[in-house]
């Protein structure tokens, strides 16, 4: 197991290297660039050349890349040119990280705790009302664009009915104490429960929006997987032993049915970042997705590079975790 993890981590280094190479070249081949974004269209050629030199963009791409690689190995990923001008890109990443983690974790929890039970009962009552209804719901979940769902929720729950805040992470008037920068957690740790509650209220709509796609995907996989397992001989054996429904459901059906679901959840974590870009933009939520969208619009190379590399690393780590979890719940892998 340890050898497996080490091997995967070495693979991760290689993947990151390739991603960085592609990303670096690709970004610099894009039309437009930081010079236009910073100086606007009417700057003189002299000012442009001067800025290009300051940013090191006058050198050839391979030279720039080696420079970047050398700095990156020493933990220096450059400075933000536009998103937060002058801030170290890595610092910016760590500033924004808690917001997105908080949002993604809540969205994932929402998706998992609704999709798995619903998937199970839909399969159990295959063809019934609940089954048909939830299959339609999950189709809506994947078919409706995330930003549209976000706008609709925001319109009704915030603007029309004033139930939940339309944007932001927390009401700044609360002047909440910061410890971890996970606002809900901070509120609980400092016993500023009103601050925690306010942060949670800000999270609800973005989290529902972000959860829609993972919910739909996890639901469909769970349903299909449970349907398959219910027809397995070993479920019939369990029934023939007269076991309680609770034991049959947990030990015999779900334990087997959730194996493919675990893999799906891992893959959905990658999709969450895509969703976060849209969701955070719609809800003006100051997380990584929001930063990424800004950085892309303004060609903030340093920030883009850090965020995308971090996304790739995060994806690799989550799926490594999934593989480890898989080995724990499936003895056929563990005891091979």
């Amino acid at each position, binding site marked *: 197991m340890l050898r497996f993890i080490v091997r995967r981590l070495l693979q991760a280094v290689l993947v990151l290297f390739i991603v960085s190479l592609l990303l670096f070249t690709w970004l610099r081949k894009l039309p437009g660039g930081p010079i236009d974004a910073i100086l606007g269209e009417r700057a003189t050629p002299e000012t442009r050349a001067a800025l290009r030199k300051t940013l090191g963009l006058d050198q050839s791409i391979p030279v720039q890349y080696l420079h970047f690689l050398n700095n990156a190995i020493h933990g220096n990923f450059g400075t933000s040119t536009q998103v937060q001008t002058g801030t170290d890109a890595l610092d910016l990443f760590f500033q924004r990280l808690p917001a997105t983690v908080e949002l993604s974790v809540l969205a994932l929890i929402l998706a998992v705790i609704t999709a798995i039970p619903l998937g199970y009962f839909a399969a159990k009552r295959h063809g019934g009302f609940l089954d048909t209804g939830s299959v339609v719901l999950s189709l809506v979940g994947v078919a409706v664009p995330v930003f549209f769902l976000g706008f609709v929720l925001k319109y009704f729950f915030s603007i029309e009915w004033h139930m939940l805040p339309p944007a932001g992470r927390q009401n700044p008037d609360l002047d909440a104490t910061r410890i971890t920068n996970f606002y809900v957690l901070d509120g609980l740790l400092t016993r500023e429960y009103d601050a925690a509650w306010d942060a949670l209220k800000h999270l609800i709509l973005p989290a529902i929006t972000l959860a829609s796609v993972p919910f739909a995907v996890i639901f469909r996989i769970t349903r299909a997987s449970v349907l398959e397992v219910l027809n397995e001989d*070993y479920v019939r054996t369990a*029934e*023939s032993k007269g*076991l309680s429904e609770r034991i049959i459901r947990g030990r015999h059906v779900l334990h087997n049915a959730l194996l493919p679901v675990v893999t799906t959840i891992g893959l959905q974590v990658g999709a969450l970042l895509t969703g976060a870009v849209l969701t955070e933009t719609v809800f003006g939520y100051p997380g990584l997705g929001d930063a990424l969208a800004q950085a892309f619009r303004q060609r903030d190379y340093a920030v883009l590079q850090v965020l995308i590399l971090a996304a790739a690393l995060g994806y690799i780590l989550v799926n490594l975790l999934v593989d480890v979890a898989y080995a724990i719940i499936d003895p056929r892998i563990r*005891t091979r």
Partner: protein
Amino acid sequence: MTAPSPAPATTDTLLSVRDLTVEFGTKGQTPFRAVDGVSFDVRPGQTVGLVGESGCGKSVTSLAIMGLLPKRGNKVAGSATFDGTDLLTLDDREMRDRRGRDVAMIFQDPLSSLNPVVSIGVQVAEVLQRHRGMKKSAAMAESRDLLDKVGIPDPSRRLKEYPHQLSGGMRQRALIAMALACKPRLLIADEPTTALDVTIQAQILNLLKELVVDSGTALIMITHDLGVVAGLCDEVNVLYGGRIVETAPRHELFASPRHPYTNGLLGSIPRLDGARNEQLAAIPGSVADNIPWTSGCAFAPRCSRAIDVCRAETPSLEQDSVAIEDHLLRCHNPWPTGGEA
């Protein structure tokens, strides 16, 4: 004409199946009758065979008795009286209390019949915990003894292992251990040796004989293999197209098989004393080709002795006029006693 049932169940009958009929079908379609008016008795300690080829309704019969047919899409009629209670009228909870405790079952494919992600020990112990209210540790200790009893070597180690780590024979032994954990009074074995190597088949049959038959547990043996029947069963029911076509005590059936289908089954057993290049007799066609029983004998299209009346009139199950013992037969034109098997 209505099929006469065997003699009414006597007090020493453990299980009495009467006119069991199972129909499958989705709404709007003509239902398919998989089992049609099957009646038979099992006395305590007796071994009864249900014999027939694939699709004859033998497995559906056993699943119906166990209450294991899918709840939707089928209709079960008739009765299966076990120790005075009709199992078919019990609700889900009452049936759950009986399954695994009074009536247990083992299945054809031991690998797919075991949960791949749960250890053998837990799969045996959960029956004990469910029906005998044992604590986990006590149930595990008892499971170890059970594995030992069914002849699994090194049971303490096997207890912690998973199905994929066991051989086919050991898996079937483990399933037998689960089925016998609560000392049921009736065990239904659905083709328990079909998926196993020939040498292992004999071991498993011997184990069943030793643990079940010799200890007084009644056994319903479902098989297509008359060799299994010859070695184990007291009473044999031959099924075809969802109906019993011939019922007799084992010796009677082997000595004078009367139904052409039974004869066909016997004739298709390869013999060691046969000539080298002798063609193995096969019954032409398959059960799927059968015509419904409503307009004649379902076996008639495949039968070498079919006469006009076979295609026109459905034969009923009646006492064979020439037999001395109880011998029920559903045939217009049976083989003369002594047949040509």
